[in-house]
């Protein structure tokens, strides 16, 4: 279970094989959202009504998961999830609903260092939601719009509220929405590269979290890092839950043996 600020994700695993997954919006009661997401994932795994043998909860709502056998931070879970998909990964950029983190890991998939953004929505899914609302477009339209830009209009504000005002001013000045949106993506990417100064970057870089579904953001990160960025061949939003399930699977195997 990965109970995030905006969405709750669940992955059901058995002997290493993914049986079912779910993603639902996180409501105001994380415990209820967790139960609902777990129920949906069990249903998709055709294990309706059954109780998992071992459950790990992660994400900010992990402390509201009394049904979990254990809690593990999303830092460790993302590393485990990413490593299980691609053992070459050494750096993860995770952009979630309310935070952004850069995770460094070793050749065994163990976390060696990490950094998270501080008290700021810039570089998160929430930031992009605000920008989408300014343009009155769907969130998933932002990436394609950024890719259609002819030029990039620089955004100087990294504060979400001020950036919203800046975008409105740029629109009033007659700038094309696509060009502004590309500038927004580049501003976020620059902020993420700034974060990595403290932990470093090593190939391969994997991009996870809900924002990783945004192709424009992937491009902006590649430009900023001057390196290829890998999107997992699995829903990037579920990497944390997948990692939690991998850990649960290991724990259960250890308990059984």
């Amino acid at each position: 279970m990965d109970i995030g600020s905006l969405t709750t994700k669940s992955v059901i695993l058995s002997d290493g094989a993914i049986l079912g997954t779910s993603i639902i919006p996180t409501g105001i009661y994380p415990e209820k959202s967790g139960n609902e997401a777990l129920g949906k994932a069990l249903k998709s795994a055709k294990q309706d009504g059954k109780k998992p043998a071992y459950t790990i909860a992660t994400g900010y709502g992990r402390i509201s998961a009394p049904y979990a056998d254990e809690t593990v931070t999303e830092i460790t879970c993302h590393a485990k999830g990413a490593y299980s998909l691609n053992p070459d990964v050494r750096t993860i950029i995770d952009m979630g609903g309310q935070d952004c983190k850069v995770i460094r890991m070793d050749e065994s998939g163990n976390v060696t260092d990490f950094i998270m953004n501080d008290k700021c929505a810039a570089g998160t899914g929430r930031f992009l939601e605000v920008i989408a609302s300014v343009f009155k477009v769907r969130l998933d339209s932002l990436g394609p719009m950024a890719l259609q830009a002819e030029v990039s209009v620089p955004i100087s504000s990294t504060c979400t509220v001020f950036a919203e005002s800046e975008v409105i001013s740029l629109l009033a000045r007659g700038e094309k929405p696509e060009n502004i949106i590309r500038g927004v993506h580049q501003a976020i990417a620059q902020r993420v590269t700034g974060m990595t100064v403290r932990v470093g970057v090593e190939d391969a870089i994997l991009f996870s979290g809900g924002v990783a579904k945004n192709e424009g953001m992937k491009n902006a990160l590649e430009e900023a890092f001057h390196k290829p960025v890998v999107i997992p061949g699995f829903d990037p939003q579920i990497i944390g839950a997948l990692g939690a399930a991998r850990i649960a699977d290991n724990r259960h195997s250890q308990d059984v043996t």
Partner: protein
Amino acid sequence: MTLVALQKIRDAVQQRPGEIEEEKRKGKIIVGWVGYLIPEEIIHALGLIPVRLGRGGDERLVELGARYISSQNCAFIRACMGMFAENTDPYIRGADAVAFDNACMQVYRLGEVSKYYCKKKTLFLGVPRDPASPSAQKYFRHEVEHFTQKLEDLAGKKVEPEELTGSIGLYQNIRAAICELYHFLDIGESPLNWKEVGEVVHAGYYLDKTNYFSLLQELLSEIRSLPVITAPNSNEVRIILSGSLIAPGDVKLSDLIEHVNGNIVSDDLWSGLNPSLNMHIDNPTIMGIADAYMNRIPHYTLPCLDKDNDIRFEHLKAAVLKTKAQGVIYHTIRYCDSATLKTTGLKNRLRKEGIPLLEIHTEYSGSDVEAIRTRVEAFFEILKFKDNPEVRV
């Protein structure tokens, strides 16, 4: 169960504001101070009552202080300014004069701004930026001499050598007692946790020094008489706290570390152990005091990390090895530029020694508690997996 002597110290701290009022009625002069290199021995030797000022953990005071001092100063400085502006803290209200040093430039700024707005009699002690340079000692000697003259004006008398010798001895004994208290903590034989040790250290900010030393002796005697605890919690993570100060009242980070099964076994904080370390006043004179203060572990705003002779780094490294700490949590109180500037260099140097470091940037509001919890838990996961590969997930 609370130790008898610890309870006595708590009771003494509760009663101290009333005692201070009584002392003032009798004509005693109170000298509040904020800084790292204020030579308290001289204040004490003149019969003045020294009180170290400042509290943390109260967001309301931070907001209040920010009306007077820029929000680019750290939360502690803003909270102190809030205390000066509000003037309800018994020690600030009672202070006849307030002394500041400029080891930290934000402390110096607090002195200037509080003097301007609150009209307190204010004394400043200049501190050289590079304590290792040959001219630093000369400069600081001159500053301490000048500072002493100001204090003598305030006291209306000169420092007597016998009084100074007595005060130096008392303070040396207090520092030795605090070091012993920390020793019990780092060898895992303390019935007090780090937060309680901090409470005892902070009690010394306010209490009459003779009474404080007597209470410290009582506390140490009680600890020595207790059976040794020999069964450490194998799940706990041993941590050293470093970085910006953690002022009295600021319990957010220490509570959180404890809550996730961390054990703070020592610190190298300006508000913790550091002022009691490396202080050897061999010559009981004003100059001897100046030299000893200049040679103590430098304030974290002073030493330059690219120098090979960074005493603070060497001390931190030695403390990690001595206490068998698994990692260092480096606390930066927003916006402490000095702490932020030094972190990456320190982290890289510690990494070469195999010592992991976690940076925590925070202030006094509760809005980031869960974000900090995630960082600390994730750090502990790294440390546990590093030390016990068999429990890797």
